């Protein structure tokens, strides 16, 4: 197996005096979908924020594509090819859908921005209908689509998604994960997904991690993880 695209080694991080992650190890290989499962407060969101340099104190090593990104600023990490769809979506609420998508591509210098815009509008036709509308006025599901499309506009090498199903109706969630799986298959885009809805997430993932109070307590191939009786009972709840 080649070197992983993203590698976290012995990462300790938290907020102020509170330590949330205690020596976390995690890898995501190029082209795969990895999923982090775990209960509320286990440190899933903290892991993603640590990767993007959004926390003050991070110990250990985080490397992307073979080089360490610990010390870099968030915007530099984003420019190096990691896009995060944050929890609660983080859209630019008072800007139009079109502006949101163009902001996704703001760091790009190539000429393909217009073509990409058309491409994601085709994939998410609801966004095309509402391209001049303020992002904040759309429904939760539409904003989630927008946040993902915006992340894709940056042509990331690694897409991080934080609880994409949060607040969405079950049917929309199912549709969303099918599209994510499709993007992974057709584009070969590497993804790291944090999700509470374990069965949906494991269905599109190749690798899974189970996080509990800041430590990985189980990991392995997604199918094996889903099949493991102990893990299912203890952590996945299905």
């Amino acid at each position: 197996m080649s070197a992983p695209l993203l590698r976290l080694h012995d990462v300790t991080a938290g907020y102020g005096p509170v330590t949330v992650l205690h020596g976390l190890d995690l890898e995501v290989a190029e082209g795969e979908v990895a999923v982090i499962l775990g209960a509320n407060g286990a440190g899933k969101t903290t892991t993603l924020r640590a990767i993007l340099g959004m926390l003050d104190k991070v110990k250990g090593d985080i490397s992307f594509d073979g080089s360490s990104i610990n010390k870099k600023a968030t915007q530099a990490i984003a420019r190096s090819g990691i896009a995060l769809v944050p929890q609660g979506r983080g859209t630019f609420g008072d800007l139009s859908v079109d502006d949101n998508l163009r902001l996704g591509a703001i760091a790009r210098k190539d000429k393909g921005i217009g073509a990409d815009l058309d491409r994601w509008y085709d994939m998410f036709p609801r966004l095309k209908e509402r391209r001049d509308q303020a992002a904040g006025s759309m429904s939760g599901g539409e904003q989630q689509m927008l946040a993902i499309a915006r992340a894709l506009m940056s042509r990331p090498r690694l897409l991080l998604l934080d609880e994409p199903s949060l607040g969405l109706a079950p049917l929309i969630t199912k549709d969303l994960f099918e599209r994510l799986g499709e993007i992974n298959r057709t584009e070969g885009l590497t993804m790291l997904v944090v999700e509470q809805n374990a069965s949906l997430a494991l269905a599109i993932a190749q690798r899974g991690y189970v996080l509990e109070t800041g430590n990985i307590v189980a990991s392995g191939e997604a199918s094996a993880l889903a099949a493991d009786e102990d893990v299912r009972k203890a952590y996945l709840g299905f």
Partner: protein
Amino acid sequence: MELFIDQVLNGINVGVIYASVALALVLIYRTTGLLNFAQGELALFSTFITYWIAVEQDVPIWAALLLSFAVSFIGGALIERILIRPVEGAHSPLNVVIVTLGLFLAVNALAQLIFIKPGQEALRMPGFFPSGDLALGIRNSTAGFAAVLVAECVLLYLLLQKTKLGLSLRGVASNPESSRLVGINTGTMLMVGWALAAGIGAIAGSLAATRGSGFDTSLMQQILVYSFAAAALGGFDSPLGAVVGGLVVGIADSLTIQYVDALDGIELVVPFVLILVVLLVRPNGLFGRTIVERV
């Protein structure tokens, strides 16, 4: 009726100044979320720079304004980076007030120390427009001021709506964290916001200095209060609101002076009451966006 129209035109003349300073206040509020109490004094310093270039260095007045704009632009960026950055994000109104008032005092005093020779009273800024009337009783300066404001607005609109830099600025104003996540260097954008504000202030101050017979270090202090009223009326985050608010405040002030004898000498009651009422009744102003609490 003619008197009325005269007063409205007079109001537009001064309203352009308020609108410009309010525009500067709004640019800073949108990018950094703070009210810059030193905005007027920064504009004052820029005005002295214009004066110094034009009169002491004998450069044509419009070229002097352009140079002054450039110097102010850089100065604004440096002030943000060096003085304002440490109090941003602290969300302590006291710290913001302290730093901007400290800047207010220091900049005003520096202008006095650097530009005013001992014994000198008021300085005379050369006019930007020939004196006299354009047509229909409209003074050249009023038409010229209005043209400057229109040009400012058009350029600002093009910058914000049609360029990548403008998109980044709007992104940072809307959601700083998401802006970093798409790779925008928010720090640079805050500097650009302050730089633009300082540049617009330079124009406003230089124009204001040509009104009346001369100017001194108190030039911008009353204007600042009116401009805050204009920005409050329009909504602190709305450039369009700043322009409309500035003109409304200017005209209202001019008509008050003419027609409301009871307020003779205390016309400043008008912007004060305006600020009070708007903040109490409609804190977002006429054109401001509703601030939605984010999850």
